[in-house]
């Protein structure tokens, strides 16, 4: 489904702020995998997701989605393969537009947009049903401007938008980090439901080790721009947080204590 080969990216090359964000990243994800990604600040997690989404071009290496080389494909073109939810709840929706309008724009991701009516009647009914599954009471607020919603509600709508037409790959960039714990748990629950129901191939970055273990069928840990730990299947199911900390120390050569700012239990 996703094949990343020797991906490299350096920000601000040749300056004092030079930062090697990706240092030869290799990753292959199979169809239907739900992969959680953990790692310290600056490990390259978001950089990897942005590279897959095409926010900028990598310096070296290739990215293939579903057998198509997308390395040089512009962001809006490869969007047809992807569903994305950002860390910032403000980033994934258009605040000055209605919930239904936001959903209708997402529903047409990957199609050529025409000069025909932007939302059909039947569509509104479909959106109403989908919003009802979120159990946030949004189904009665279809014509409400998204800017009036809370961060958690906006993130839930963004999730719905990202999964509307079954993307080949769902990219979740710490999408619960900016929410309060209760809302975060709710959004994660919705995430898991959408991913399972639609059998979506998913990459989810999280700061929370417990979530990283609890969700998905594979866990990868990044450090200094590449993958240092990769566990899946039965091994991942049995994983404990202390084992995970041990794996991190082994891989990075430093105790997790130094990095406690980054990962929480």
């Amino acid at each position, binding site marked *: 489904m996703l094949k990343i080969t020797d991906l490299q990216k350096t920000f601000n090359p040749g300056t004092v702020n030079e930062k090697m964000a990706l240092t030869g990243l290799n990753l292959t994800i199979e169809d239907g995998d739900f992969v959680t990604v953990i790692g310290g600040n600056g490990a390259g997690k978001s950089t990897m997701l942005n590279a897959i989404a095409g926010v900028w071009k990598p310096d070296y290496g290739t990215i293939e989605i579903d057998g198509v080389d997308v390395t040089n494909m512009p962001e809006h073109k490869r969007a047809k393969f992807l569903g994305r939810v950002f860390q910032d709840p403000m980033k994934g929706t258009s605040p000055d537009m209605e919930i239904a309008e936001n959903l*209708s724009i997402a529903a047409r991701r990957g199609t050529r947009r025409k000069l025909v009516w932007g939302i059909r009647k039947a569509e509104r009914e479909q959106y109403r049903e989908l919003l009802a599954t979120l159990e946030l009471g949004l189904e009665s607020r279809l014509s409400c401007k998204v800017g009036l919603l809370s*961060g958690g509600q906006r993130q839930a709508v963004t999730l719905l938008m990202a999964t509307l037409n079954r993307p080949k790959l769902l990219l979740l960039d710490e999408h619960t980090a900016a929410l309060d714990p209760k809302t975060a748990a709710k959004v994660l629950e919705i995430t898991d439901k959408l991913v399972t129901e639609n059998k979506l191939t998913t990459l989810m970055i999280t700061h929370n080790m417990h979530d990283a273990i609890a969700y998905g069928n594979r866990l990868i840990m990044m450090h200094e721009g590449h993958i240092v730990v990769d566990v899946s299947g039965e091994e991942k199911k049995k994983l404990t947080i202390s084992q995970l900390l041990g794996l991190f120390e082994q891989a990075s050569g430093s105790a997790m204590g130094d990095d406690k700012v980054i990962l929480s239990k």
Partner: protein
Amino acid sequence: MAFLYALPGAIAEGLIWGLMAIGVYISYKILDIADLTVDGSICTGACVCAVMLANGSPVWLSVVVAFMAGAMTGILTGLLHTALGIPSILAGILTQLILYSVNLSILGSKSLIAIDPRANTLLVHMSNNPRSIVAAGMIIVAVIIGLWLFFYTEVGLTLKSTGDNPDMSRAQGVNVKFNKVLGLAIANGIVALAGALLAQYKGSANINDGRGAIVIGLAAIFIGLSVSMKIKPNFVVSLIGVIGGGIVYYVVYNFVVLLGLKTDYLKMLSAIIVALFLAVPYLKNEYFKKQTPARIQTTPPAASNEGGDANA
């Protein structure tokens, strides 16, 4: 009394400037670009229309070609911005300067071309204000209906989202660059259409027409939206508000002229109006913010950062 005599003229001219302000509304409010092309493209519209009328073209054709010429100027600014990576405000300034030369060459190196209302059938002219008001009003209604329909199409919705949230738009597969060019083309097409009407109304196209047009457009938008947003904040009401803003602007303009303000100062007055509208909300918030107790919330509170910090 003199003011009442001047009123129909002020309304007619206000309608035309209101139409121009709708163009500015598309770039400034919808695309979130302060597009300085406007000062040049309104003049391009006036010049194209005047020259075509002088050469015997029918008035409707002159107006349509003026619209298309304006759209081209918007495309130029859009390409300078999106294809060449020039900041949008600078791209507009560059096009504006380019258009000064272009407009001069359209006028055949003259600074003014007169339109003879007896030789041409004109849509609007200052000699017949009631008719001008009706004609300008009909064109405005057609433009508003057209825009209303357009902004609810698949393409139109993505044009709105492009200005509102480019990150979200790109993530949803919207070609943000193309949309900016398209939006600027429509905006400047409408501005040039207003320019064509203005040239007919005044009976001439002048190379200096349109200097400060962006400021007048913004003034009309701020005046109009200050009222229409309180009535109903939707697209059509906003556009009608903008037209109203244009009319109010020209009525006030005529009023201060009659009060004896030297016309030399009028551009300064326009700038002061816009500066005030931009400054007042800021000043209110910065210096005159009163403490208000929380009211019962109708919407759930925005997400706090607590969770993020706690989880970190």
